[in-house]
């Protein structure tokens, strides 16, 4: 699949230029380290208020892409737009980042660390301290506020980092593997926090290998492989695009006896490959017209993990 290319991106938007709706946009971004090309002409846009999934195998270039978006690294080629303009240090106050290789000052006390990180986001000392207390309560860690970070468990430390990330109520939040190391209760808590952000119109970029979380949370996704953008679009559309032209039919009747070419599906129904010209709804009408008593009917939609494996294992 060819990488998406956009050619009409101006270096500096003229006054009549319509500012893109994207909170974060990349246009033809390339970056190399020595001989290694980390990113090659990547263009994509993260829209306001969505949960955007950034997917890809290890070493695909996701972290480099995030770093460039947050002005931590500069691209060799291409343009980045943050909140509709080239990134500036002031814009970073409206963003937050939870890196995959996350770190903390282990000898610092929890409240002290959060207050400091809040101050770095431009919050006043009192506001940062209040936000630290509020977010520690949100992640059920108020009791450890005055403990050193080094005394916390891995999961607790991770929640402190998530609290640090969300405490400035950023318009754009980039979360790299936010669920790793969390128990199911805390996974549910973080999921709820992300949903809450969406409800309040805040944008979240979610980079994760947990595909069921992507399916549950993301509106749109981009898949990077070997520095190139290989898939980009709405999650449901992508899933449909990579789905087989098949349906599952649950019925008490024997479809094979009725002359339908079907196989038994592991979920209990009959798996039927549709003719190329047929649609799922049309085929259902046809089944009913032919007297099949349908208990349940479902077009077969590919799971994100299947699409991921399919795309990165070179089968596409």
């Amino acid at each position, binding site marked *: 699949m060819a990488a998406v290319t956009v050619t009409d991106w101006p270096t500096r938007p003229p006054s009549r230029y319509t500012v893109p709706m994207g909170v974060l946009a990349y246009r033809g971004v390339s970056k190399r*380290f020595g001989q290694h090309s980390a990113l090659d002409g990547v263009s994509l846009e993260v829209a306001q208020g969505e949960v955007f999934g950034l997917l890809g195998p290890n070493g695909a270039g996701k972290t480099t892409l995030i770093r460039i978006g*947050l002005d*931590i690294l500069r691209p060799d080629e291409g343009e980045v737009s943050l909140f509709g303009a080239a990134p500036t*240090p002031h814009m970073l106050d409206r963003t937050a980042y939870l*890196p995959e290789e*996350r770190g903390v000052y282990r000898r610092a006390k929890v409240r002290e660390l959060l207050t*400091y990180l809040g*101050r770095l986001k*431009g919050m006043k000392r009192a506001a940062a301290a209040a936000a630290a207390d509020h977010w520690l309560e949100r992640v059920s860690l108020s009791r450890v506020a005055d403990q050193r970070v080094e005394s916390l468990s891995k999961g607790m430390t991770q929640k402190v980092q998530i609290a640090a990330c969300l405490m400035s109520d950023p318009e754009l939040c980039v979360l790299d593997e936010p669920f790793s190391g969390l128990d199911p209760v805390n996974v549910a808590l973080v999921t709820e926090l992300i949903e809450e952000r969406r409800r309040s119109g805040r944008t979240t970029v979610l980079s994760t290998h947990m595909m069921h979380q992507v399916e549950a949370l993301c509106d749109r996704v981009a898949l990077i492989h070997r520095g190139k953008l290989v898939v980009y679009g709405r999650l449901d559309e992508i899933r449909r695009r990579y789905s087989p032209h098949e349906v599952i039919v649950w019925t008490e009747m024997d479809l094979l006896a009725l002359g339908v070419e079907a196989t038994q599906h592991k979920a209990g129904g009959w798996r039927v490959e549709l003719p190329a010209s047929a649609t799922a709804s049309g085929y259902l009408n046809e089944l009913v017209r032919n007297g099949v008593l349908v208990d349940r009917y479902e077009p077969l939609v590919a799971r994100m993990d299947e699409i991921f494996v399919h795309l990165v294992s070179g089968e596409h």
Partner: protein
Amino acid sequence: MRIRRIAAVARFELLSVVKRWSYLLATFGLPLFLAAISGIVIGLQTYFFSQRAEESSQFGLIDEAKVLDRSLFETQDGELRWKANEGADEVLLYESREEASKELGSGRLRAMYVIEQDYLANGQVRAVESEKTPLLSMRGTSIEPLLRKLLRKSLVQGRLDGDVKERVLSPAFFLRSRLGPDGDEVVDVDEALDLLVRTSIPLFLGILLLTALLSASGYLVQTVSTDKESKIVEVLLSSVTPEEILAGKLFGLGAAGLVQFAAWSSMVVFVAVSASAALAGVVSIPWGALALAPVFFVLGYLFLGSLMLATAALGANAAESQKLTMGWAMLAILPLMVPVILLEEPNGILGQVMTWIPFTSPLTVIVRLAVDPSGIAWWEVGGSMLVLLISTWLSIRIGARLFRVGFLLTGTMPSLAELWRQAR
């Protein structure tokens, strides 16, 4: 750059360091420790010498060459004795080695000296100590110069007359004076002591300046390594620019270093004031050097610190960062590698050259100002500050770029060309 962010980083770094026990101990404990050590050493020395003064020390002398003037000896209890000095040292004249050896073996004598038969030809005097005599007790005594005096007196007796004889025995009495604003004033002090007090305070101040500089720079290296090893770098860089982090760390840890230097300098002032009170006219407090020391500390620290930060950021861990920054530290130490030249000839060619090199100028200027304030021109002080300022500006600019690249580096360090490409 945003001042409030820099202040937030600086405050955090400052508090992180000053809360450490190691810092408190080094800053306030070191002066107390040195004072305690000095007190103990001086106390022990005083005690040792007072004990020595109370001891009676007797030495045996055998004149096989027959050169001694026996009229210089007094007869007491059937023995010939020479009161060597105002103290208790006494020389007993023996007729034979055996007799003196017996007394040495019994412990009465601390040592015996034999003026051997061919003394006039080769000047040899054999010094014999007993096994019981501690090595230092004889070496440390002042008897040997006095024995030389006794021999000189004996040798000139009857051979020279009047003033010539006196001048042979005491060729010169040096009257020391120092040129001051009111002409030259006589100073009654030993030359060695004079040199010692004139150079020890500047040297002390210089060492403290350098130690404080390297200590503060060491904190910088440590904090960068901590940030990299704890992997908090990306979190910081997603909020503040590398330049703001660099500036915040420089200022925060510089403040910690300045407090340390102030505490240590107060010790120098205390020593200088005490020495000045005790040895008026010999020790002058180097007020000029003391006043400019904080300025040179700050400038030197900003210059060296920004280079250290940038270089330390290229290391993957603390050990690697230490190795990478060692070169800068060695350059800063350079003036202390040639302390004798700098102290004896502060305004010589070496001192003048090192005044203009930003790595060496803080220490050199302060030592030159402390040793001989009249020997360094105002334009040299001002010029060295200007060079240091320009170098600091440059090192912060280059340092910030390297810091940006280095801060995110992990694993193998890229080539210099690649570093430069990333830093542009």
